[in-house]
């Protein structure tokens, strides 16, 4: 029976079959990996923001513990300390805290005390520092010593160091997990490329023997898997972005917890996912295909 075939309207068909029964499974696996990678990126951003928020607060403040000595009252010693610190370069505000506030800080450990006057609670002086050029602990200490005050300056440097170290660990861990997921995705694509080449060995063989260059054949698989990975990446990124949005809405400005404050802008981090996934897949497919074609 004759078939209508318009030569003028003919367009070359794809060398590889458009669809493969294994594609949905591959899309699912890569989408899950992309989802996890995006969540890792969101977690890292939120952790970093949390750490920066804490260190920012601590860097802008210092606390001075003042003990009265000689016949001087604690209130007078705290007032003298505040006076000594006010006006120093890098200091914007100094406040001597009332006895009750100092007591509030240690109440969890000593419980209720009937007469505060019987308790030698040291006085606290809160110092607000200039964020751009904060005064150092040494400068504050010198100023207090000049006034012969028995005082200890705490510029929170130990805490800041700890928080920064913790933030660094979170960041490094996130990068390591991200790389691990990318490597897993690449391995899966390489495996799928091998399977694809094995399943399409007839096509590869015909192309090879008909004079196709190795790069020509490899690029077919490269494009195919890059496209699959881009679709998978988009699905994974959209899912992670949606989950991030839900967490942001559930937790308000603080995100799910104050430790992981997700911001709306963080959700933009998932956008490069499809491109990155396609890139990883393309490289993995190209390397695998070229190696296999060489063995033909």
């Amino acid at each position: 029976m004759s078939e209508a075939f318009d030569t003028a309207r003919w367009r070359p068909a794809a060398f590889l079959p458009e669809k493969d029964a294994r594609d949905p499974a591959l899309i699912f696996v890569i989408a899950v990996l992309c989802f996890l990678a995006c969540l890792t990126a969101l977690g890292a951003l939120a952790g970093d923001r949390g750490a920066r928020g804490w260190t920012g607060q601590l860097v802008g403040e210092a606390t001075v513990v003042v003990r009265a000595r000689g016949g001087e009252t604690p209130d007078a010693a705290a007032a003298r300390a505040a006076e000594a610190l006010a006006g120093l370069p890098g200091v914007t505000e100094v406040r001597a805290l009332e006895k009750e506030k100092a007591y509030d800080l240690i109440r969890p450990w000593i419980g209720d005390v009937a007469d505060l006057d019987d308790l030698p609670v040291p006085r606290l002086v809160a110092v607000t520092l200039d964020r751009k050029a904060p005064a150092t602990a040494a400068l504050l200490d010198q100023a207090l010593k000049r006034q012969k005050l028995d005082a200890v300056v705490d510029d929170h440097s130990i805490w800041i160091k700890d928080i920064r170290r913790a933030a660094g660990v979170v960041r490094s861990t996130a990068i390591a997990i991200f790389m691990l997921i990318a490597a897993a995705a690449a391995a899966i694509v390489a495996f799928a490329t091998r399977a694809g080449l094995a399943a399409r060995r007839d096509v590869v063989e015909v192309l090879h023997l008909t004079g196709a260059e190795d790069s020509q054949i490899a690029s077919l698989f490269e494009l195919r898997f890059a496209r699959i990975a881009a679709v998978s990446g988009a699905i994974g990124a959209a899912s992670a972005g949606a989950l991030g949005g839900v967490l942001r809405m559930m937790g308000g400005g603080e995100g799910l917890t104050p430790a992981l404050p997700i911001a709306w802008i963080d959700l933009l981090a998932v956008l490069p996912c499809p491109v990155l996934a396609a890139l990883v897949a393309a490289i993995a497919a190209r390397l695998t295909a070229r190696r296999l074609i060489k063995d033909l």
Partner: protein
Amino acid sequence: MSRNAQAAAGDSLSDEILRFSDVSMRYGRGPEVLSNVSLSLPRGSFHFITGVSGAGKSSLLKLIYLAARPSSGTFRLFGDDVATMTARDLTMARRKIGVVFQDLLLLDHLSAFDNTALPLRIAGHKAADYRSDVAELLTWVGLGSRMNALPPTLAGGEKQRLAIARAVVNRPEILLADEPTGNVDHEMALRIYRLFVEMNRLGTTVIIATHDQDLVARSGRPVLHLEKGRLKPLPPQGPVT
């Protein structure tokens, strides 16, 4: 000089298209499938390769269409030693060879038209430049009404002709065919043979591996006869009917 001797003599022809010098071949660590084969074929010649199954016919063709390498000896193709060819040289050489594979190797997901156009597309030609040529060729091989058909829907003879159309579409310098008449009736075998003769008349060097002694005898073409991987004198033929 006998037909076989004529083919295998390896006369130093100035216009030889390929030359085997003491070529042996084995697959992996297996036994030799070709042993010390020496022959030279002139450009524009037409040869049959005969021999029983396992004699080495397909292996000899594989060497020629560059799907395998000799394990020893020298094979020169288009004037170049294949052993020293780069990957790019090999690719370019393959583009000058048309092959009708024993199992045809048609791509089932491509239409007859796409299958035929394959070598031209691979070589980088523009569709506009070859559309009409492909259609004309398919009509010439009797598939003018089946251009849009997928290979699984074609009959055996149609598939065979499609494979031939793909092999000749880019006017190859060498046309190889491995048992091209193996699965078709006598009449179709003759039609296919005439196609090869026509290609040869246009200047293509044709080499056909076949069991079809009747076709070989009728053709009067030179024969390369293989026995256990070695070129041997052609055994005496029965009367041609």
